[in-house]
Every structure is written in C-alpha cells, then in structure tokens.
C-alpha cells in the first residue's frame, strides 16, 4: 500500500476507534482501553512512517477524496494535502494523543461512564489530526466544529466536581462564536473565489486582495485566534483546562490550541499570504505580546495548580504568536520550535498536576505541601517541566525562547521600529515571571511542610509515570540536541510555510503557481550560531564532576552528611523556639511584595475576569470588531 493513503487512514482510524468504542466498549474496560491504545498507536505509527518521505525527502502528499480531481483548473473535491508544515503539527498531535491515551488508562479508572470518555477523546484526536492534514478550508471548519464540541463534552466530563459544567458552557458559547466567525469568513471566500481548496485559494489570493477577501481574512483570523485562546479570547481556556481531567488538559494545551496556531500560520502564510504586510505583523505581534503578559500576570495570581498552568498555556502561546507574527524565517523557526516545546513541557506539567490530583484529591496550592518526599518521581518530572518552561539552559524552552528574542530584536534593529524593542523586553520579563510562578508551585506543592492530611499519599502507578518520564526526556533531549530538531523538523516546516508554490503545484498540477504569478519568499538571513550544546554538555559534566569531587574529598571525619528524624532537635526545622508549628508559606501568599506594588493592575484584571459569560462573549465580539476595523484601515 502506498503511503499516500496514510494520512487519511490515520484520521479514519481515530474516528473508527471512537465508533467501535460506542459499539463494543460499553461493558468491558479491557476492550475500551485496547481500542483507545490501538487507535492512537496506529495513528502514531502511520504518521511516523511519513516522516521520511515528507519531512526528510520533502515530498508533498496530495490526496483527492474519492478521486475527485480538479476540473478545468478548479478544485471541486475535498483534498488532503500534507506538506512539511502540516506534518510537523501532525507529529505533535499524534504524540500527544498516544501519551495521553496511555496516561488515561490508570488516570480515569475511578471515574464513571468511561466509554464516553474514550469516544470523545478519540473523536477529538481525529478531528485535530484531520485539521492539520486537510487541504480544504471547509473540511477544516468541520474539524474545528468536531473539535470544539468534543472538547466541550470532555470539559464537562467530571461533572461531579465544582464548576465543570459552567466551564463547558463558557467554552461552548465562546467556541461557537469563534466557529461562526470562521464559517462567515469561509463563506465570503467561497463567494469570491468559487473554491475551497487551500492551494487554489493561495494561488488566487496571492497579492490580489479585494475588500471582501480582507473581510474574510479578518473574520477567519479572529475565529482561529479564538481557537488558540490568545487574549482576549482566552477566558474559556482558563476554566476548561482547570476542570477537565488532566489527561484532557494536556490534550487541550498540547494540540487543541496548537490547532488554532496551525490555522493562523496556514491562514497568514499560505492561504492569504499577507505576512509581508506590516499591518498584519503589527497586529499579530501586539496580540502576542499582550497575551504573554496578561497570561503570566494572571498565572502569578492563581491559587490552583491547574488554573495556574492554564494561564501559562495562554502566555506561552503568546510567544508563539509573536514569533510567527514577525514574519521572518528566524521568527517562524522560533515560533514553531516554541510550539513544539510547549506541547512537551506543558503536557508534562499537566500530567504532573494530574498525578498530584490523583494522589491527594486536590490541586489547591494552599492545601498542598511537602509532596517531594512522598512523590519523588513526580517532583523530578515537575522540576524538569518547570525549568523548561522558564527557559533555563540547557532545557528546550531556552533554545526556543532564545530564537524568539533574537528574532524580535533582529526585527527591531533592522526595521528601526521601537514596538519590537518593547516586545523583546516584554518577552524577556515574562520569562522571569514564568519562573516566579513555577517557584511558587514548587514551594507550595512539592517542598515545605507536609500537611497532616497528606501523610499517607503514595506515588502514582507506573503507567501514569511512563508518559511523564518520556516527556521529561524529550524536554531535555530537544534542548540539548536542538541541532537535530532544527535540521529535521524546523527547517522543512519553515521552508514549507515560506515557499508556497510547491504546495500549490502539488495540488493543482505543476505550473499552476507560475501561471498565477505566485512567488516564494526565500528563507534567508537565518543565523543559527547559538551556543553549541555539545561543548556545553561536556563542560557541565566536567565541572559537575569537579564539584562533586570537591565535596567528596571534604567528607572527612567531621564533614560527613548526617540525617535523622524530626524528633531529634538537631534535625528538626528551626522555628525560633516557637512551640506551635508556624504556617507553611505557600500558594497565595508567596509573592505579596510584588502583588502589593501591582495592586491596581491586579484589581483591574480581577474585574475583567468576571466569570460572566456575557462579558467574555462581549470581549470576543469587540476584539473581532477591532480586528476588522484594523484590517480595513491599515491593510488596503
């Protein structure tokens, strides 16, 4: 069987898995688990087999459903088209699906109505995979719809708890508004161009915009921005990520909002090819910078582990949007790299949060503490994830963030535009604030004193640890061996996004792009001379050895390491002689010095995040109006 069928089969396997789970999986947990693992495993293998032809050899797979080939230069059938950009995201999606499915096996074993969980899970997976592989705008919309509604269902899955139905309702309202904008945009586009195929649209719209297509751009941009939860469309994300099961939160941040990001890249770089227009760059960079900043400051104010992670998800997507919006190949590389890293480290952190929830029954940071002695594996994984997201070298977050800063400042000095300097500073400061809020989680949940209530906590089972370890390893490896990531994943994806004529020709027959006068952008000006991690790693090891040696030699008769239990005063924590145990400083109180100074800002933010869905819908509509007005004022 030729590999051109693989993308379609991968998507269909996931949907078939969902269907079979309904039919066969009602009564047996073993069947359900088998179906979920089998479907996600097959999808993973099929996509992984495409790595060689698509990513390495640079082939573009075009596939017309039911063999409905274009007639007279017009695409009439639904086409699947897999280029390196789609492939890059497809890899992220299938990895997330597989790891989440493995984690789910033990994680949701105590929940009721598990068959619905797997049905929704597999449908969500299939829809996101379909979204990144399709070459048809309307098919993309359908996938967005399936994605939104299954995501709503999964948000409300644990409806015994507080707030999950409310979160689902918010998600439903905001998500539907976003979908409607997308649909409206697609309708206008179809009216103008009489086609829904992305390749053909790209050929027709390249440098050839009418007011109607600009309107379509603004609406579709808003619709996809809602799906990637950038500020001010982020409001449902915070609730949904918090109340959904952690395996699903991981899927949300790992691939559902990446689907939105993918959509934006596809829209801006391929379909409309508006990335050269400074106004579009400004729009995206401002959206990105605001998202980064509001996301991280809101995260600093949270008391709930998962809610804090949710706001970080929003904030990190801000980095991606900023980098992508710079529209330089360096920026695009940084953006895609950061998107990939975000999938890894944020997925990992959500899984850690899930482990804490399963072990202790709460994610409230004010009630946790001292878990590192009870859950050492989770603590190590969490620290790796936290250091990665804060961008400490040599973890992966550092490599990608560095590219983002470089790209932003490069843009600033080459254009002389002060906006980009500002954005660079914001990006750098947001990184420190990210670190701060993870220090808060570390202190509040994993270190400090163990509350009496949590004395009997146990580490999570191996099947839940496995995905966490895999992702931790990937976080370290992709940071240290960024050269390989760059060569085999990022460079192909970036060249696919910038060089659109091959994409068009592959779908519409060769010569079509040239006929429509589509020109590619040369991927140039990339200088990847950042630090050489191999030298570094060697160095790190040498110095670490030296330091260890230094400590070991000092271990004389008096310098030994002593341990004992808390009854002995020598090993007890120092409390200044107070008899009562002082309270454990954690959670909400940790950064009061900072919060006092920013009281005004936090009060405003608290007011804006009112929790009333009417307000949130208003933000979406208002932002859409602003985008439309902005588009008409500056993009003509």
């Amino acid at each position, binding site marked *: 069987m030729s590999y051109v069928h693989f993308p379609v089969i991968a998507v269909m396997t996931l949907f078939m898995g969902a269907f079979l789970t309904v039919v066969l999986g009602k009564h047996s947990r073993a069947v359900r688990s088998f179906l979920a693992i089998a479907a996600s495993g097959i999808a993973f293998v099929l996509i992984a087999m495409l790595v060689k032809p698509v990513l390495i050899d640079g082939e573009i797979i075009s596939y017309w459903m039911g063999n409905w080939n274009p007639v007279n230069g017009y695409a009439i059938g639904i086409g699947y088209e897999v280029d390196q950009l789609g492939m890059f995201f497809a890899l992220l999606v299938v990895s997330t699906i597989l790891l989440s499915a493995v984690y789910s096996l033990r994680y949701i074993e105590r929940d009721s109505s598990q068959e619905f969980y797997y049905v929704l899970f597999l449908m969500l997976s299939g829809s996101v995979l379909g979204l990144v592989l399709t070459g048809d705008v309307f098919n993309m919309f359908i996938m967005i719809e399936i994605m939104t509604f299954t995501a709503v269902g999964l948000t409300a899955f644990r409806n015994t708890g507080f707030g999950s139905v409310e979160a689902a309702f918010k998600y439903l309202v905001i998500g539907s508004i976003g979908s409607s904008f997308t649909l409206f945009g697609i309708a206008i586009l179809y009216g103008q161009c009489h086609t829904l195929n992305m390749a053909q649209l790209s050929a027709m719209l390249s440098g050839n915009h009418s007011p109607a297509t600009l309107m379509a751009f603004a609406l579709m941009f808003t619709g996809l921005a809602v799906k990637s939860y950038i500020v001010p469309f982020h409001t449902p994300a915070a609730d949904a990520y918090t109340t959904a099961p952690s395996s699903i939160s991981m899927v949300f941040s790992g691939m559902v909002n990446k689907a939105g990001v993918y959509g934006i890249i596809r829209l801006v770089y391929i379909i409309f090819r508006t990335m050269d227009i400074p106004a579009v760059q400004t729009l995206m960079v401002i959206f990105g910078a605001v998202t980064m900043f509001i996301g991280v400051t809101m995260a600093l104010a949270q008391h709930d582990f998962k809610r804090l992670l949710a706001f970080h998800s929003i904030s990190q997507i801000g980095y991606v949007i900023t980098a992508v919006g710079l529209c330089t190949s360096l920026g695009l590389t940084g953006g895609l790299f950061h998107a990939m890293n975000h999938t890894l480290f944020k997925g990992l952190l959500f899984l850690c949060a899930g482990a804490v929830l399963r072990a202790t029954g709460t994610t409230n940071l004010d009630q946790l503490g001292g878990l590192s002695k009870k859950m050492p594996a989770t603590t190590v994984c969490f620290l790796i994830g936290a250091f990665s997201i804060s961008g400490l070298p040599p973890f992966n977050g*550092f490599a990608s963030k560095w590219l983002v800063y470089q790209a932003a400042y490069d843009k600033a000095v080459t254009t002389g535009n002060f906006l980009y*300097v500002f954005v660079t500073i914001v990006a750098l400061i947001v990184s420190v604030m990210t670190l701060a809020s993870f220090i808060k989680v570390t202190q509040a949940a*994993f270190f400090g004193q163990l509350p009496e209530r949590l004395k009997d906590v146990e580490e999570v089972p191996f099947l839940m640890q496995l995905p966490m370890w895999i992702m931790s390893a990937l976080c370290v490896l992709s940071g240290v061996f960024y050269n390989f990531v760059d060569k085999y994943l990022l460079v192909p994806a970036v060249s696919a996004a910038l060089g659109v004529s091959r994409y068009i020709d592959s779908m519409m027959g060769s010569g079509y792009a040239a006929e429509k006068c589509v020109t590619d952008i040369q991927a140039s000006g990339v200088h990847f001379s950042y630090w050489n991690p191999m030298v570094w790693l060697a160095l790190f090891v040498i110095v670490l050895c030296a330091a260890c040696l230094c400590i070991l030699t000092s271990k004389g008769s008096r310098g030994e390491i002593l341990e004992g239990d808390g009854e002995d005063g020598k090993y007890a924590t120092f409390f200044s002689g107070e008899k009562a145990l002082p309270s454990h400083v954690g959670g909400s109180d940790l950064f009061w010095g900072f919060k006092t100074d920013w009281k005004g800002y936090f009060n405003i933010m608290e007011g804006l995040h009112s929790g009333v869905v009417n307000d949130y819908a208003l933000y979406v509509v208002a932002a859409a109006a602003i985008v439309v007005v902005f588009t008409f004022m500056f993009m003509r």
Partner: protein
Amino acid sequence: MDITGALYILFKILIFPGLLFAVVIGLFLAGLDRKLLARMQKRVGPPLRQPLFDFLKLLGKETIVPHAANKTVYLAAPVVGFTALIVLALFIPVFGYSTFSGNGDLIVILYLLTIPAVALIVGGSSSGSPYAGIGISREMVTMMSYELPLVVVLLTVARKVGGSALCFSLGDIVSWQAENGCLAFHPAMIPALLAMLLVIPAEVGTQPFDVAEAETEICEGPLIEYSGAPLAVFKLNTAVKMFIMTALFANLFFGGIETGYVALDAVIMVAICALVTFFSMTLIHAVTARLKIEHLFKFYWTVVAGLAALSLILVWVGL
C-alpha cells in the same frame, strides 16, 4: 582534536579563566569588600583572606540534612549553582581572551545568571523551613526587580554596538570598543552604566538589597538550614557572583582598554572589578540600610529601569 588542544581547553576550564581564576578573584573581591567596609565604619576588619578561611572551615563542618528536607535537591542545589557560575565565567572574556564565543552571548549570560539564584531558591525551598519560604519569595521578587533594568541595559549595549544589525556577542562588543572607545565614555550610555552599577548589588545580594537573606529578621532566609559543605559552596557562589557581575560590567563598559598581553589584561580587569565592587557594593552598603521588598521592587522598576530606558531611547535616536 589532538591532545594538546584538549589539554588547553581543560586548562581554560579548570584554571584560567575558569574555575580557579574565578574562585580566587571572587574570594579576593569578597575579602576586599569586607575590609573596605570595615575601614569605612572605622573597624579594623578581617584580613583579606578571611572568605577563604571561612570557606575551608565550613568544608570541615558536619552537614546536617533536616528531617523535613528533600535530601537530593537540598544537596544538589549549591553544586548546580556553582557549576552554572563557572560556566558563566567561561563565557565572559578577559577583554580579548575568551573561551567560547557565539552570537547569543548576552542572552546566554542573562539566563545563566538566573541559575544560581534559582539554585538558591530551590535549595532553600527544599529545606522545608518557613523562614526559607519567606526568603525565597523575596529572592524571587528581587530577581524580577533587577531583571527589567538588566535586560534594558543589555539591549541598549546591543543596539549601540550593532547599529542596524543584531549583535548579542560579548566578543564583538569588546572588539567594537577597542575601535570606537569604551562605552563608558559615550554620553548616551552613562545612564545605562549607572543602572548597571545598581543592578550589581541586587544580583549579588548585598545591603541594601539583601532582603532575601536579611540576617536580622529572617536569619539568612534560604540558607537557614544549611550547614557544612553545602553552605560553604553557597557562600562561595556569592563570592564568584561578585566577580562575574563586575567582570561583565568591565567588559560591557570598559571593553576597549586591552593591551594585547593576557596577563596584563587580567590585572587591569581585576583592578576594574575591585573598583566596581567598591562603588556599587561597598560604598552603597556602608551608607544605606536595608529596603523593604516592595520598596526594592518599586525602586528597580522606576528609578533604575528609568535610567536604563533613558539610555535605550538616547541610543535609539542615534546618540
């Protein structure tokens, strides 16, 4: 790579400008700081070698791991911080003489500088003490405070040197100054220089910016439970950090005065380091009292960041 090349790299890592050099100069600067401070307060003060004696003595003391602590993290934290500092020492050239050089030096340095602070925070946090809890909170807020001006200063230097090209390489910054004169003598850079002088004491954690350790109120915060060798390494980290920050300052603002002889360059650099230590740490320490954490934050985000931003704007308009 042949054997001499490998040995040369090993020499760079372990002796000059790596491990040994950084440690010796760091301890020297720490001793100098204490001596000068004592003289300014009309005390005799400890001998210049006192920090070294302290370090050696602490190494011989027993290391107590508190019951509430997570042993691995508790013991690993100081070593990780120390490692990062030594790596950092390799990234900061002695004017023309450097171990590694690449385009992203400034950002790498910025991020490596956070690692010792994070090591202190995580180590303190893992000790399980409530005093450490308060200490790490303050350390983190201090970090957020000085990061903004530091970032702006670095970007200003990058713009001044690079013009309309991206330039984050410390090596390029130094060679630019060799041609165009030290950045300290460019009028537009004066506010940035002042801002950097104020960033150094917060980064190192000396009075009045030592809120995180505040011996008199929270008993050294993150270090409260530490003893023996880990404490010795943490104390050493502070000393090495003094050297790193002052050397970074010397390269950023006085990079042009290289003579071509590495040994002479090293002496000049140490002299500049000592001067900077005196002005930015000892002098301020002697004449001020400790700030509150919210005042510290406000001070850095208004006054210091304002100075840095002034410089950035001046450079941006072409001065």
